[in-house]
């Protein structure tokens, strides 16, 4: 099993993370990479209270996170970590600032104006988000669309090929 899950989820920490991903991965650490939540005492404490005891929760702005460390490289660390980004824009920003990962899980991207491509029931993408994800794919990142561990993972590259063929 992979050590870390790097995930895009517009709901950040919510039921799917608490009840599905944490037990599935036996995660012992969650990193919430978000400029609005980091430093917001109320939102930070709500998330801390929701996460089961014994699991470390770290809040970090995007720029700080990218500079702080590259968790995938921590070879002396056997913990399983979930790294959460609210949007594709945010994870791309972290990537551009130096955060590297081999796999990206796209769990929930809510339907908004401009997000005309739908993959599965919970991921809606705009043209520029598709381009950004394709860039990651070309750079060797395995991008999967999957809300919860029990869902069948859908390869982003395959899915985009399919929706383009529609």
């Amino acid at each position, binding site marked *: 099993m992979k050590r870390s899950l790097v995930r895009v989820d517009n709901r950040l920490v919510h039921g799917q993370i608490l009840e599905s991903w944490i037990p599935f991965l036996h995660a012992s650490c969650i990193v919430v990479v978000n400029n609005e939540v980091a430093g917001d005492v109320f939102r930070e404490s709500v998330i801390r209270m929701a996460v089961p005891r014994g699991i470390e929760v770290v809040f970090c702005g995007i720029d700080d996170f990218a500079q702080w460390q590259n968790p995938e490289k921590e070879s002396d660390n056997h913990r399983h970590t979930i790294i959460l980004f609210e949007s594709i824009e945010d994870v791309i920003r972290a990537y551009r600032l130096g955060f590297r990962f081999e796999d990206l899980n796209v769990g929930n991207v809510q*339907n908004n104006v401009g997000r005309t491509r739908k993959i599965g*029931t919970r991921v809606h993408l705009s043209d520029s988000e598709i381009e950004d994800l394709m860039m990651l794919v070309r750079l060797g990142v395995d991008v999967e669309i999957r809300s919860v561990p029990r869902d069948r993972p859908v390869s982003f590259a395959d899915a985009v090929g399919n929706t383009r063929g529609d």
Partner: protein
Amino acid sequence: MIGVVVVTHGNLGRELIRAAELIKGDLKGVAHVSVDATRGVEDLKKEMTTAIKKADKGEGVLILTDLFGGTPSNISLSFLKKDKVEVVTGVNLPMLLKMPDARAGMTLAEFADFIAEYGRKNIYLASAILNRKTEN
């Protein structure tokens, strides 16, 4: 009358209210909001705002939600306001059944506290009760 809004994953809230009404008859001043995967958070917040306004008859609104940390609870918490909106998580049928009798004569804070405690107290391990009875 203190208003009540049940906010849950999927249609759990609607069905809990229906189940309570089977037992208790028509529940007044109780609304529900369903949170599912297809709807955006902003859209849900709008629906919540409307539901809370509608439920508020001047004595405040109690939001009952299912899972602390889940999206329904996360959205509900953004509406917390002293003496106006309280949030209790872990909603169950005993809470809904008790609510109509309990809310008269209580402030919102008292009512929220009472319902949280009542919901907690009404979870039993049946075999433990039976064992206790046979011991007596």
